[in-house]
Protein backbone atom coordinates (compact mmCIF):
# COMPACT_ATOMS: atom_id res chain seq x y z
CA UNK A 1 0.00 0.00 0.00
CA UNK A 2 1.46 3.34 -1.13
CA UNK A 3 0.08 6.53 0.47
CA UNK A 4 1.28 8.78 -2.39
CA UNK A 5 -0.57 6.63 -4.93
CA UNK A 6 -3.72 6.54 -2.78
CA UNK A 7 -3.65 10.34 -2.51
CA UNK A 8 -3.04 10.67 -6.26
CA UNK A 9 -6.12 8.53 -7.00
CA UNK A 10 -8.14 10.55 -4.47
CA UNK A 11 -7.08 13.87 -6.07
CA UNK A 12 -7.78 12.60 -9.58
CA UNK A 13 -11.28 11.39 -8.63
CA UNK A 14 -11.99 14.67 -6.88
CA UNK A 15 -10.97 16.73 -9.94
CA UNK A 16 -12.94 14.38 -12.23
CA UNK A 17 -16.09 14.68 -10.12
CA UNK A 18 -15.83 18.47 -10.04
CA UNK A 19 -15.30 18.59 -13.81
CA UNK A 20 -18.02 16.08 -14.60
CA UNK A 21 -21.25 18.05 -14.17
CA UNK A 22 -23.31 14.87 -13.97
CA UNK A 23 -21.44 13.55 -10.94
CA UNK A 24 -21.58 16.98 -9.30
CA UNK A 25 -25.36 17.13 -9.75
CA UNK A 26 -25.78 13.61 -8.37
CA UNK A 27 -23.59 14.48 -5.39
CA UNK A 28 -25.54 17.60 -4.57
CA UNK A 29 -28.91 15.81 -4.86
CA UNK A 30 -29.16 14.82 -1.16
CA UNK A 31 -28.29 18.39 -0.08
CA UNK A 32 -30.88 19.84 -2.43
CA UNK A 33 -33.54 17.30 -1.42
CA UNK A 34 -33.04 17.98 2.29
CA UNK A 35 -33.45 21.73 1.73
CA UNK A 36 -36.52 21.16 -0.45
CA UNK A 37 -38.10 18.76 2.04
CA UNK A 38 -37.64 21.06 5.02
CA UNK A 39 -38.91 24.05 3.04
CA UNK A 40 -42.01 22.06 2.05
CA UNK A 41 -42.72 21.12 5.65
CA UNK A 42 -42.50 24.73 6.81
CA UNK A 43 -44.81 25.78 3.97
CA UNK A 44 -47.66 23.59 5.28
CA UNK A 45 -48.07 26.05 8.18
CA UNK A 46 -49.28 28.73 5.79
CA UNK A 47 -50.99 26.61 3.16
CA UNK A 48 -54.32 27.93 1.79
CA UNK A 49 -56.79 25.09 1.18
CA UNK A 50 -59.34 25.47 -1.60
CA UNK A 51 -62.53 23.70 -0.41
CA UNK A 52 -65.70 23.41 -2.50
CA UNK A 53 -68.93 23.62 -0.49
CA UNK A 54 -72.46 22.86 -1.69
CA UNK A 55 -75.18 23.97 0.68
CA UNK A 56 -78.39 22.00 0.18
CA UNK A 57 -80.16 24.73 2.16
CA UNK A 58 -80.23 26.95 5.25
CA UNK A 59 -76.58 26.63 6.42
CA UNK A 60 -75.28 30.06 5.45
CA UNK A 61 -73.83 30.70 8.92
CA UNK A 62 -71.79 27.43 8.75
CA UNK A 63 -70.39 28.47 5.38
CA UNK A 64 -69.57 31.92 6.75
CA UNK A 65 -67.79 30.21 9.66
CA UNK A 66 -65.73 28.12 7.19
CA UNK A 67 -64.89 31.24 5.20
CA UNK A 68 -63.69 32.98 8.35
CA UNK A 69 -60.99 30.31 8.79
CA UNK A 70 -57.89 31.90 7.32
CA UNK A 71 -56.51 28.67 5.84
CA UNK A 72 -59.68 27.81 3.87
CA UNK A 73 -60.57 29.30 0.53
CA UNK A 74 -64.28 28.39 0.32
CA UNK A 75 -65.72 27.96 -3.17
CA UNK A 76 -69.52 27.78 -3.07
CA UNK A 77 -71.00 25.63 -5.80
CA UNK A 78 -74.54 25.26 -7.15
CA UNK A 79 -74.65 21.48 -7.03
CA UNK A 80 -72.95 18.46 -5.53
CA UNK A 81 -71.95 17.44 -9.05
CA UNK A 82 -70.16 20.76 -9.63
CA UNK A 83 -68.22 20.29 -6.36
CA UNK A 84 -67.20 16.78 -7.35
CA UNK A 85 -66.06 18.03 -10.74
CA UNK A 86 -63.81 20.59 -9.06
CA UNK A 87 -62.34 17.82 -6.91
CA UNK A 88 -61.76 15.50 -9.86
CA UNK A 89 -60.10 18.35 -11.73
CA UNK A 90 -57.87 18.99 -8.70
CA UNK A 91 -59.13 22.55 -8.36
CA UNK A 92 -59.93 21.90 -4.69
CA UNK A 93 -58.38 19.69 -2.00
CA UNK A 94 -61.76 18.63 -0.53
CA UNK A 95 -65.50 19.08 -0.90
CA UNK A 96 -68.32 19.35 1.66
CA UNK A 97 -71.95 18.58 0.81
CA UNK A 98 -73.89 20.35 3.61
CA UNK A 99 -77.34 18.78 4.05
CA UNK A 100 -80.62 20.75 4.46
CA UNK A 101 -80.91 22.21 7.96
CA UNK A 102 -77.31 21.30 8.98
CA UNK A 103 -76.64 24.53 10.91
CA UNK A 104 -79.88 24.33 12.87
CA UNK A 105 -79.34 20.64 13.69
CA UNK A 106 -75.84 21.34 15.02
CA UNK A 107 -77.09 24.17 17.20
CA UNK A 108 -80.02 22.09 18.47
CA UNK A 109 -77.78 19.27 19.54
CA UNK A 110 -79.03 16.88 16.88
CA UNK A 111 -76.21 14.96 15.17
CA UNK A 112 -76.52 15.67 11.43
CA UNK A 113 -74.54 14.04 8.63
CA UNK A 114 -71.90 15.92 6.66
CA UNK A 115 -70.69 14.44 3.38
CA UNK A 116 -67.00 15.05 2.88
CA UNK A 117 -64.82 13.92 0.03
CA UNK A 118 -61.06 14.44 -0.31
CA UNK A 119 -58.56 13.82 -3.06
CA UNK A 120 -55.93 11.51 -1.52
CA UNK A 121 -53.44 12.41 -4.27
CA UNK A 122 -53.54 16.07 -3.25
CA UNK A 123 -50.98 16.58 -0.46
CA UNK A 124 -53.02 19.54 0.87
CA UNK A 125 -55.90 17.17 1.76
CA UNK A 126 -53.76 15.99 4.69
CA UNK A 127 -53.96 19.48 6.20
CA UNK A 128 -57.76 19.48 5.62
CA UNK A 129 -58.17 16.13 7.40
CA UNK A 130 -56.17 17.44 10.35
CA UNK A 131 -58.31 20.56 10.76
CA UNK A 132 -61.95 20.04 9.68
CA UNK A 133 -63.15 18.33 12.89
CA UNK A 134 -61.84 21.18 15.07
CA UNK A 135 -63.58 23.71 12.83
CA UNK A 136 -66.93 21.94 13.19
CA UNK A 137 -66.46 21.61 17.00
CA UNK A 138 -65.78 25.31 17.07
CA UNK A 139 -68.90 26.04 14.99
CA UNK A 140 -71.01 23.93 17.36
CA UNK A 141 -69.45 25.89 20.24
CA UNK A 142 -68.35 22.63 21.78
CA UNK A 143 -65.15 21.94 23.61
CA UNK A 144 -63.05 18.84 24.10
CA UNK A 145 -63.83 17.09 27.38
CA UNK A 146 -60.21 17.63 28.48
CA UNK A 147 -57.79 20.55 28.46
CA UNK A 148 -54.79 19.69 26.37
CA UNK A 149 -51.41 20.88 27.40
CA UNK A 150 -49.68 20.93 24.03
CA UNK A 151 -46.02 21.91 24.15
CA UNK A 152 -44.38 22.53 20.82
CA UNK A 153 -40.78 21.52 20.35
CA UNK A 154 -38.41 24.43 19.74
CA UNK A 155 -38.67 26.09 16.36
CA UNK A 156 -36.73 24.19 13.72
CA UNK A 157 -36.70 21.01 15.79
CA UNK A 158 -38.88 19.26 13.25
CA UNK A 159 -36.09 19.50 10.71
CA UNK A 160 -33.72 17.97 13.27
CA UNK A 161 -35.80 14.78 13.16
CA UNK A 162 -35.22 14.64 9.44
CA UNK A 163 -31.44 15.17 9.52
CA UNK A 164 -30.55 11.58 10.55
CA UNK A 165 -32.75 10.36 7.70
CA UNK A 166 -31.01 12.60 5.17
CA UNK A 167 -27.54 11.79 6.46
CA UNK A 168 -28.28 8.06 6.29
CA UNK A 169 -29.69 8.52 2.79
CA UNK A 170 -26.55 10.44 1.73
CA UNK A 171 -24.21 7.83 3.17
CA UNK A 172 -26.02 5.02 1.35
CA UNK A 173 -26.56 6.99 -1.86
CA UNK A 174 -23.00 8.25 -2.33
CA UNK A 175 -21.41 5.03 -1.12
CA UNK A 176 -23.53 2.68 -3.19
CA UNK A 177 -24.48 4.72 -6.26
CA UNK A 178 -21.79 7.32 -6.91
CA UNK A 179 -18.65 5.47 -5.84
CA UNK A 180 -19.20 2.20 -7.77
CA UNK A 181 -19.60 4.40 -10.84
CA UNK A 182 -16.09 5.80 -10.45
CA UNK A 183 -14.60 2.28 -10.41
CA UNK A 184 -16.76 0.71 -13.15
CA UNK A 185 -15.99 3.68 -15.41
CA UNK A 186 -12.29 2.90 -14.93
CA UNK A 187 -13.01 -0.71 -15.97
CA UNK A 188 -15.08 0.25 -18.98
CA UNK A 189 -12.78 3.00 -20.30
CA UNK A 190 -9.78 0.76 -19.54
CA UNK A 191 -8.07 3.54 -17.58
CA UNK A 192 -7.66 1.01 -14.78
CA UNK A 193 -5.29 -0.98 -17.05
CA UNK A 194 -3.10 2.12 -17.36
CA UNK A 195 -3.06 2.54 -13.58
CA UNK A 196 -2.25 -1.11 -12.96
CA UNK A 197 0.79 -1.17 -15.25
CA UNK A 198 2.22 1.60 -13.07
CA UNK A 199 3.53 0.79 -9.56
CA UNK A 200 -0.08 1.13 -8.28
CA UNK A 201 -1.72 -2.09 -7.09
CA UNK A 202 -5.41 -3.04 -7.02
CA UNK A 203 -5.35 -2.42 -3.28
CA UNK A 204 -4.02 1.12 -3.81
CA UNK A 205 -6.87 1.77 -6.25
CA UNK A 206 -9.48 0.42 -3.83
CA UNK A 207 -8.10 2.40 -0.89
CA UNK A 208 -7.80 5.55 -3.03
CA UNK A 209 -11.43 5.20 -4.08
CA UNK A 210 -12.52 4.43 -0.50
CA UNK A 211 -10.77 7.56 0.69
CA UNK A 212 -12.50 9.58 -2.01
CA UNK A 213 -15.91 8.06 -1.12
CA UNK A 214 -15.34 8.66 2.56
CA UNK A 215 -14.37 12.28 1.96
CA UNK A 216 -17.40 12.94 -0.25
CA UNK A 217 -19.89 11.28 2.09
CA UNK A 218 -18.59 13.06 5.17
CA UNK A 219 -18.47 16.41 3.33
CA UNK A 220 -22.06 16.10 2.06
CA UNK A 221 -23.33 14.79 5.41
CA UNK A 222 -21.73 17.72 7.24
CA UNK A 223 -23.21 20.12 4.68
CA UNK A 224 -26.69 18.67 5.29
CA UNK A 225 -26.24 18.87 9.07
CA UNK A 226 -24.95 22.46 8.80
CA UNK A 227 -27.69 23.69 6.44
CA UNK A 228 -30.42 22.21 8.63
CA UNK A 229 -28.91 23.53 11.87
CA UNK A 230 -28.14 20.05 13.11
CA UNK A 231 -24.95 20.63 15.09
CA UNK A 232 -26.74 19.76 18.32
CA UNK A 233 -26.47 16.95 20.84
CA UNK A 234 -23.27 14.96 20.96
CA UNK A 235 -21.49 16.12 17.79
CA UNK A 236 -18.48 13.87 18.41
CA UNK A 237 -20.74 10.80 18.45
CA UNK A 238 -22.53 12.05 15.34
CA UNK A 239 -19.17 12.33 13.56
CA UNK A 240 -18.16 8.82 14.66
CA UNK A 241 -21.36 7.36 13.23
CA UNK A 242 -21.09 9.41 10.03
CA UNK A 243 -17.52 8.12 9.61
CA UNK A 244 -18.34 4.48 10.38
CA UNK A 245 -21.45 4.55 8.17
CA UNK A 246 -19.56 6.19 5.30
CA UNK A 247 -16.76 3.64 5.52
CA UNK A 248 -19.26 0.76 5.61
CA UNK A 249 -21.33 1.86 2.61
CA UNK A 250 -18.29 3.00 0.63
CA UNK A 251 -16.92 -0.50 1.16
CA UNK A 252 -20.22 -2.08 0.11
CA UNK A 253 -20.29 0.13 -3.01
CA UNK A 254 -16.76 -0.90 -3.97
CA UNK A 255 -17.59 -4.55 -3.38
CA UNK A 256 -20.52 -4.18 -5.77
CA UNK A 257 -18.27 -2.47 -8.36
CA UNK A 258 -15.60 -5.17 -8.10
CA UNK A 259 -18.22 -7.88 -8.47
CA UNK A 260 -20.19 -6.16 -11.24
CA UNK A 261 -17.32 -5.08 -13.54
CA UNK A 262 -19.59 -2.69 -15.48
CA UNK A 263 -21.67 0.38 -14.80
CA UNK A 264 -25.14 -0.97 -15.63
CA UNK A 265 -24.78 -4.12 -13.51
CA UNK A 266 -23.36 -2.09 -10.62
CA UNK A 267 -26.23 0.41 -10.82
CA UNK A 268 -28.80 -2.39 -10.90
CA UNK A 269 -27.32 -4.18 -7.89
CA UNK A 270 -26.95 -0.88 -5.98
CA UNK A 271 -30.55 0.13 -6.67
CA UNK A 272 -31.88 -3.26 -5.56
CA UNK A 273 -29.81 -3.11 -2.35
CA UNK A 274 -30.58 0.53 -1.52
CA UNK A 275 -34.35 0.20 -1.11
CA UNK A 276 -34.36 -2.35 1.77
CA UNK A 277 -31.37 -0.66 3.40
CA UNK A 278 -33.19 2.67 3.61
CA UNK A 279 -36.74 1.42 4.23
CA UNK A 280 -35.94 -1.14 6.93
CA UNK A 281 -34.04 1.44 8.97
CA UNK A 282 -36.80 4.03 8.62
CA UNK A 283 -39.82 1.78 9.17
CA UNK A 284 -38.43 -0.29 12.05
CA UNK A 285 -41.01 1.17 14.46
CA UNK A 286 -43.99 0.11 12.33
CA UNK A 287 -44.11 -3.55 13.29
CA UNK A 288 -42.22 -6.12 15.32
CA UNK A 289 -41.35 -8.08 12.15
CA UNK A 290 -39.85 -5.03 10.43
CA UNK A 291 -37.97 -4.19 13.60
CA UNK A 292 -36.36 -7.65 13.68
CA UNK A 293 -35.48 -7.40 10.00
CA UNK A 294 -34.01 -3.94 10.50
CA UNK A 295 -31.39 -5.39 12.88
CA UNK A 296 -29.94 -7.23 9.87
CA UNK A 297 -29.01 -4.08 7.94
CA UNK A 298 -26.15 -1.72 8.88
CA UNK A 299 -28.20 1.36 7.96
CA UNK A 300 -30.31 0.81 11.11
CA UNK A 301 -27.25 1.21 13.33
CA UNK A 302 -26.07 4.27 11.42
CA UNK A 303 -29.55 5.84 11.65
CA UNK A 304 -30.07 5.01 15.34
CA UNK A 305 -26.55 6.12 16.23
CA UNK A 306 -26.85 9.52 14.54
CA UNK A 307 -30.45 10.03 15.78
CA UNK A 308 -29.64 9.26 19.42
CA UNK A 309 -26.40 11.22 19.39
CA UNK A 310 -28.12 14.22 17.87
CA UNK A 311 -31.48 14.23 19.64
CA UNK A 312 -30.71 12.48 22.95
CA UNK A 313 -27.14 13.71 23.38
CA UNK A 314 -25.97 10.07 23.60
CA UNK A 315 -22.25 9.39 23.70
CA UNK A 316 -20.33 6.42 22.30
CA UNK A 317 -20.57 4.69 25.69
CA UNK A 318 -24.38 4.83 25.46
CA UNK A 319 -24.37 3.65 21.88
CA UNK A 320 -21.76 0.90 22.14
CA UNK A 321 -23.95 -1.82 20.54
CA UNK A 322 -24.50 0.29 17.37
CA UNK A 323 -20.85 1.40 17.42
CA UNK A 324 -19.54 -2.15 17.89
CA UNK A 325 -21.73 -3.64 15.18
CA UNK A 326 -20.65 -1.00 12.67
CA UNK A 327 -16.96 -1.55 13.50
CA UNK A 328 -17.40 -5.31 12.99
CA UNK A 329 -19.34 -4.70 9.77
CA UNK A 330 -16.52 -2.50 8.42
CA UNK A 331 -13.90 -5.11 9.26
CA UNK A 332 -15.99 -7.75 7.47
CA UNK A 333 -16.58 -5.63 4.37
CA UNK A 334 -12.94 -4.62 3.92
CA UNK A 335 -11.73 -8.18 4.59
CA UNK A 336 -14.17 -9.36 1.94
CA UNK A 337 -12.84 -6.75 -0.51
CA UNK A 338 -9.27 -7.96 0.08
CA UNK A 339 -10.38 -11.56 -0.38
CA UNK A 340 -12.32 -10.84 -3.61
CA UNK A 341 -9.40 -8.85 -5.06
CA UNK A 342 -6.99 -11.65 -4.24
CA UNK A 343 -9.30 -14.22 -5.82
CA UNK A 344 -9.86 -12.06 -8.88
CA UNK A 345 -6.12 -11.56 -9.33
CA UNK A 346 -5.42 -15.28 -9.10
CA UNK A 347 -8.10 -15.94 -11.78
Amino acid at each position, binding site marked *: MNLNIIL*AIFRKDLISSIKSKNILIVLLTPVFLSILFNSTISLTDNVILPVAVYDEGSSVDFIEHLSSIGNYEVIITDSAGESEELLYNEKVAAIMIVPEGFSADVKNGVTPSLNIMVNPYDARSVVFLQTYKDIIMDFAEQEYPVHFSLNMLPAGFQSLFNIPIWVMFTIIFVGMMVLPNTLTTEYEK*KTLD*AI*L*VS*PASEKDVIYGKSFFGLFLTILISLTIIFINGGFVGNSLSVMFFVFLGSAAFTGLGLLIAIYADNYSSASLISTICMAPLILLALLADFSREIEYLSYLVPSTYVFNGIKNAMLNNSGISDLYPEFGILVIFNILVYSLISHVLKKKRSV
Partner: protein
Amino acid sequence: MSKKYDDFKAVNDISFSVKKGAIFGLLGPNGAGKSTTIKILTCQFPPTSGTAYIGGLNTAVNATEIKKKIGVVFESQNLYEELSVYENLNFFRQLYSSPKEKIREVLKAVGMEKYQKYKIKTLSKGMKQKIMISRALLNDPDILFLDEPASGLDPHSAREIRQVILDLKLQSKTILITTHNMEEADFLCDCLAIMHKGSIIAMDTPENLKKKYGKAILRIETVTGDIYDLPLNTRASSNVFKKFSENNQISFVHSKEATIEDVFIILTGEKLTDES
Protein backbone atom coordinates in the same frame (compact mmCIF):
# COMPACT_ATOMS: atom_id res chain seq x y z
CA MET B 1 5.46 -19.37 -22.10
CA SER B 2 1.76 -20.20 -22.58
CA LYS B 3 -1.52 -18.65 -21.52
CA LYS B 4 -4.73 -20.66 -21.36
CA TYR B 5 -8.31 -19.48 -20.81
CA ASP B 6 -10.19 -22.64 -19.87
CA ASP B 7 -9.53 -24.87 -22.89
CA PHE B 8 -8.49 -22.03 -25.20
CA LYS B 9 -4.77 -21.46 -25.65
CA ALA B 10 -4.35 -17.72 -26.28
CA VAL B 11 -0.56 -18.01 -26.25
CA ASN B 12 0.92 -21.37 -27.12
CA ASP B 13 4.43 -22.12 -26.00
CA ILE B 14 6.20 -19.06 -27.39
CA SER B 15 9.77 -18.05 -26.71
CA PHE B 16 11.72 -15.01 -27.82
CA SER B 17 14.23 -12.48 -26.59
CA VAL B 18 14.62 -8.81 -27.48
CA LYS B 19 17.98 -7.07 -27.75
CA LYS B 20 18.49 -3.89 -25.76
CA GLY B 21 17.77 -0.81 -27.88
CA ALA B 22 16.01 -2.79 -30.62
CA ILE B 23 12.47 -2.54 -31.95
CA PHE B 24 10.85 -5.95 -31.79
CA GLY B 25 7.56 -6.47 -33.57
CA LEU B 26 4.78 -8.95 -32.95
CA LEU B 27 2.81 -9.20 -36.17
CA GLY B 28 -0.46 -11.02 -36.54
CA PRO B 29 -4.23 -10.70 -36.83
CA ASN B 30 -6.60 -10.19 -33.90
CA GLY B 31 -6.70 -13.31 -31.75
CA ALA B 32 -3.13 -14.23 -32.70
CA GLY B 33 -2.04 -13.73 -29.09
CA LYS B 34 -0.14 -10.43 -29.45
CA SER B 35 -2.05 -8.50 -26.79
CA THR B 36 -2.06 -11.45 -24.38
CA THR B 37 1.73 -11.65 -24.79
CA ILE B 38 2.04 -7.93 -24.00
CA LYS B 39 -0.25 -8.32 -20.97
CA ILE B 40 1.95 -11.07 -19.59
CA LEU B 41 5.11 -9.04 -20.21
CA THR B 42 3.62 -5.94 -18.57
CA CYS B 43 2.66 -7.95 -15.47
CA GLN B 44 -1.09 -7.59 -16.01
CA PHE B 45 -1.41 -11.32 -15.46
CA PRO B 46 0.99 -14.24 -15.13
CA PRO B 47 1.47 -16.90 -17.81
CA THR B 48 -0.27 -20.25 -17.25
CA SER B 49 3.06 -21.97 -17.80
CA GLY B 50 6.60 -20.81 -18.46
CA THR B 51 8.34 -17.67 -17.33
CA ALA B 52 8.72 -14.20 -18.77
CA TYR B 53 11.69 -12.00 -17.88
CA ILE B 54 11.94 -8.24 -18.31
CA GLY B 55 15.45 -6.89 -17.80
CA GLY B 56 16.30 -10.13 -16.01
CA LEU B 57 13.31 -9.89 -13.65
CA ASN B 58 10.55 -12.49 -13.50
CA THR B 59 7.19 -10.89 -14.37
CA ALA B 60 5.28 -13.16 -11.99
CA VAL B 61 7.56 -12.40 -9.04
CA ASN B 62 9.04 -8.91 -9.52
CA ALA B 63 6.01 -7.06 -10.90
CA THR B 64 6.54 -3.88 -8.83
CA GLU B 65 10.19 -3.50 -9.90
CA ILE B 66 9.35 -4.24 -13.54
CA LYS B 67 6.47 -1.72 -13.60
CA LYS B 68 8.90 1.03 -12.64
CA LYS B 69 11.07 0.23 -15.67
CA ILE B 70 8.44 -0.12 -18.38
CA GLY B 71 6.05 2.14 -20.25
CA VAL B 72 2.90 0.88 -21.94
CA VAL B 73 0.84 2.38 -24.76
CA PHE B 74 -2.49 0.59 -24.93
CA GLU B 75 -4.47 -0.23 -28.03
CA SER B 76 -7.54 1.62 -26.71
CA GLN B 77 -7.10 5.32 -25.97
CA ASN B 78 -7.59 5.03 -22.24
CA LEU B 79 -7.16 8.61 -21.10
CA TYR B 80 -9.43 10.62 -18.79
CA GLU B 81 -11.47 12.53 -21.36
CA GLU B 82 -12.83 15.15 -18.96
CA LEU B 83 -9.38 16.05 -17.66
CA SER B 84 -6.80 18.21 -19.40
CA VAL B 85 -3.57 16.87 -20.89
CA TYR B 86 -1.67 18.24 -17.88
CA GLU B 87 -4.10 16.72 -15.36
CA ASN B 88 -3.87 13.32 -17.05
CA LEU B 89 -0.09 13.34 -17.09
CA ASN B 90 0.16 14.82 -13.61
CA PHE B 91 -1.95 11.96 -12.21
CA PHE B 92 0.26 9.28 -13.76
CA ARG B 93 3.39 11.23 -12.82
CA GLN B 94 2.28 10.99 -9.20
CA LEU B 95 1.85 7.22 -9.54
CA TYR B 96 5.50 6.97 -10.59
CA SER B 97 6.69 9.68 -8.17
CA SER B 98 8.34 11.44 -11.12
CA PRO B 99 9.21 15.15 -10.85
CA LYS B 100 6.75 17.73 -12.22
CA GLU B 101 9.23 18.87 -14.90
CA LYS B 102 8.85 15.46 -16.53
CA ILE B 103 5.44 16.49 -17.90
CA ARG B 104 6.89 19.25 -20.09
CA GLU B 105 9.74 16.95 -21.13
CA VAL B 106 7.53 14.08 -22.31
CA LEU B 107 5.14 16.43 -24.09
CA LYS B 108 8.10 17.99 -25.89
CA ALA B 109 9.24 14.52 -26.95
CA VAL B 110 5.99 14.07 -28.89
CA GLY B 111 5.62 17.70 -29.97
CA MET B 112 2.57 18.38 -27.79
CA GLU B 113 3.92 20.87 -25.22
CA LYS B 114 1.47 23.56 -26.39
CA TYR B 115 -1.55 21.43 -25.53
CA GLN B 116 -1.12 21.11 -21.76
CA LYS B 117 -4.36 22.92 -20.94
CA TYR B 118 -6.50 21.20 -23.57
CA LYS B 119 -9.12 18.72 -22.44
CA ILE B 120 -8.44 15.26 -23.84
CA LYS B 121 -11.91 15.10 -25.40
CA THR B 122 -11.08 18.11 -27.59
CA LEU B 123 -8.02 16.45 -29.16
CA SER B 124 -7.86 14.46 -32.41
CA LYS B 125 -7.17 10.72 -32.37
CA GLY B 126 -3.58 11.27 -33.50
CA MET B 127 -2.98 13.84 -30.74
CA LYS B 128 -4.45 11.51 -28.13
CA GLN B 129 -2.10 8.79 -29.33
CA LYS B 130 0.85 11.13 -28.81
CA ILE B 131 -0.39 11.86 -25.28
CA MET B 132 -0.61 8.10 -24.71
CA ILE B 133 3.03 7.78 -25.75
CA SER B 134 4.06 10.73 -23.57
CA ARG B 135 2.25 9.10 -20.63
CA ALA B 136 4.28 5.94 -21.18
CA LEU B 137 7.47 8.01 -20.98
CA LEU B 138 6.72 9.64 -17.61
CA ASN B 139 8.89 7.20 -15.66
CA ASP B 140 11.70 7.36 -18.24
CA PRO B 141 11.31 3.63 -19.01
CA ASP B 142 14.03 1.43 -20.47
CA ILE B 143 11.45 -0.70 -22.23
CA LEU B 144 8.34 0.44 -24.08
CA PHE B 145 5.37 -1.71 -25.05
CA LEU B 146 3.28 -0.27 -27.85
CA ASP B 147 0.06 -2.13 -28.63
CA GLU B 148 -1.07 -1.22 -32.16
CA PRO B 149 0.29 2.35 -31.84
CA ALA B 150 -0.83 3.62 -35.24
CA SER B 151 -4.03 1.60 -35.57
CA GLY B 152 -7.01 3.61 -36.79
CA LEU B 153 -5.00 6.77 -37.42
CA ASP B 154 -5.00 8.77 -40.66
CA PRO B 155 -1.84 8.33 -42.79
CA HIS B 156 -0.32 11.65 -41.66
CA SER B 157 -0.83 10.93 -37.94
CA ALA B 158 0.38 7.34 -38.40
CA ARG B 159 3.56 8.65 -40.02
CA GLU B 160 4.10 11.09 -37.14
CA ILE B 161 3.66 8.31 -34.59
CA ARG B 162 6.16 6.11 -36.45
CA GLN B 163 8.65 8.99 -36.41
CA VAL B 164 8.17 9.37 -32.64
CA ILE B 165 8.87 5.64 -32.26
CA LEU B 166 12.06 5.95 -34.30
CA ASP B 167 13.11 8.95 -32.19
CA LEU B 168 12.62 6.85 -29.07
CA LYS B 169 14.81 4.15 -30.55
CA LEU B 170 17.54 6.75 -30.98
CA GLN B 171 17.29 7.34 -27.22
CA SER B 172 18.25 3.65 -26.75
CA LYS B 173 14.79 2.58 -25.64
CA THR B 174 13.97 -1.07 -26.18
CA ILE B 175 10.60 -1.21 -27.90
CA LEU B 176 8.17 -4.08 -28.27
CA ILE B 177 5.45 -3.26 -30.71
CA THR B 178 2.38 -5.22 -31.79
CA THR B 179 0.80 -4.48 -35.13
CA HIS B 180 -1.22 -5.98 -37.90
CA ASN B 181 0.13 -3.37 -40.33
CA MET B 182 2.69 -5.05 -42.62
CA GLU B 183 4.33 -1.85 -43.85
CA GLU B 184 4.63 -0.52 -40.31
CA ALA B 185 6.22 -3.77 -39.15
CA ASP B 186 8.64 -3.76 -42.08
CA PHE B 187 9.53 -0.07 -41.66
CA LEU B 188 10.01 0.00 -37.88
CA CYS B 189 11.16 -3.37 -36.64
CA ASP B 190 14.69 -4.69 -36.27
CA CYS B 191 13.25 -8.10 -35.56
CA LEU B 192 9.81 -9.45 -36.29
CA ALA B 193 7.86 -12.39 -34.89
CA ILE B 194 4.85 -13.48 -36.90
CA MET B 195 2.14 -14.83 -34.61
CA HIS B 196 -0.69 -17.06 -35.71
CA LYS B 197 -3.24 -18.76 -33.47
CA GLY B 198 -1.15 -18.19 -30.34
CA SER B 199 2.15 -19.42 -31.75
CA ILE B 200 5.18 -17.73 -33.27
CA ILE B 201 5.46 -19.23 -36.74
CA ALA B 202 8.48 -17.22 -37.92
CA MET B 203 10.96 -14.84 -36.36
CA ASP B 204 13.83 -12.90 -37.91
CA THR B 205 14.70 -9.50 -39.30
CA PRO B 206 12.18 -8.28 -41.90
CA GLU B 207 14.87 -8.56 -44.59
CA ASN B 208 15.69 -12.16 -43.72
CA LEU B 209 12.02 -13.11 -43.51
CA LYS B 210 11.43 -11.72 -46.97
CA LYS B 211 14.51 -13.49 -48.31
CA LYS B 212 13.60 -16.73 -46.65
CA TYR B 213 9.89 -16.91 -47.36
CA GLY B 214 9.13 -14.25 -49.99
CA LYS B 215 9.68 -14.32 -53.72
CA ALA B 216 11.21 -11.44 -55.68
CA ILE B 217 9.58 -11.39 -59.11
CA LEU B 218 10.48 -10.17 -62.59
CA ARG B 219 7.24 -9.41 -64.41
CA ILE B 220 7.35 -9.18 -68.22
CA GLU B 221 4.37 -7.91 -70.19
CA THR B 222 4.58 -8.70 -73.90
CA VAL B 223 3.18 -6.65 -76.80
CA THR B 224 0.51 -9.30 -77.19
CA GLY B 225 -0.63 -8.66 -73.60
CA ASP B 226 0.73 -11.86 -72.03
CA ILE B 227 2.19 -11.57 -68.51
CA TYR B 228 5.10 -13.66 -67.26
CA ASP B 229 6.06 -13.69 -63.55
CA LEU B 230 9.59 -15.06 -63.19
CA PRO B 231 11.79 -15.48 -60.14
CA LEU B 232 14.22 -12.56 -59.96
CA ASN B 233 17.98 -13.00 -60.20
CA THR B 234 17.91 -16.48 -61.75
CA ARG B 235 19.48 -17.79 -64.95
CA ALA B 236 16.06 -18.97 -66.19
CA SER B 237 14.48 -15.52 -65.93
CA SER B 238 17.55 -13.99 -67.56
CA ASN B 239 17.16 -16.35 -70.53
CA VAL B 240 13.45 -15.62 -70.92
CA PHE B 241 14.10 -11.87 -70.77
CA LYS B 242 16.84 -12.18 -73.39
CA LYS B 243 14.54 -14.15 -75.72
CA PHE B 244 11.68 -11.64 -75.57
CA SER B 245 14.10 -8.73 -75.85
CA GLU B 246 15.73 -10.07 -79.00
CA ASN B 247 12.35 -10.44 -80.68
CA ASN B 248 11.21 -6.94 -79.59
CA GLN B 249 8.22 -8.51 -77.86
CA ILE B 250 8.53 -6.70 -74.49
CA SER B 251 5.96 -4.03 -73.68
CA PHE B 252 6.76 -3.49 -69.94
CA VAL B 253 9.17 -4.92 -67.39
CA HIS B 254 8.71 -4.62 -63.62
CA SER B 255 10.66 -6.05 -60.73
CA LYS B 256 8.72 -6.69 -57.53
CA GLU B 257 10.43 -7.29 -54.19
CA ALA B 258 8.85 -9.63 -51.67
CA THR B 259 6.86 -7.95 -48.91
CA ILE B 260 6.09 -8.96 -45.35
CA GLU B 261 2.50 -9.45 -46.52
CA ASP B 262 3.72 -12.07 -48.99
CA VAL B 263 5.62 -13.74 -46.19
CA PHE B 264 2.53 -13.73 -43.99
CA ILE B 265 0.33 -15.19 -46.73
CA ILE B 266 2.87 -17.87 -47.52
CA LEU B 267 3.22 -18.82 -43.86
CA THR B 268 -0.42 -18.73 -42.83
CA GLY B 269 -2.35 -19.05 -46.06
CA GLU B 270 -4.39 -16.05 -44.90
CA LYS B 271 -4.47 -12.36 -45.77
CA LEU B 272 -4.00 -9.81 -43.02
CA THR B 273 -6.61 -7.08 -43.38
CA ASP B 274 -7.45 -4.01 -41.30
CA GLU B 275 -10.50 -5.86 -39.96
CA SER B 276 -8.26 -8.56 -38.61
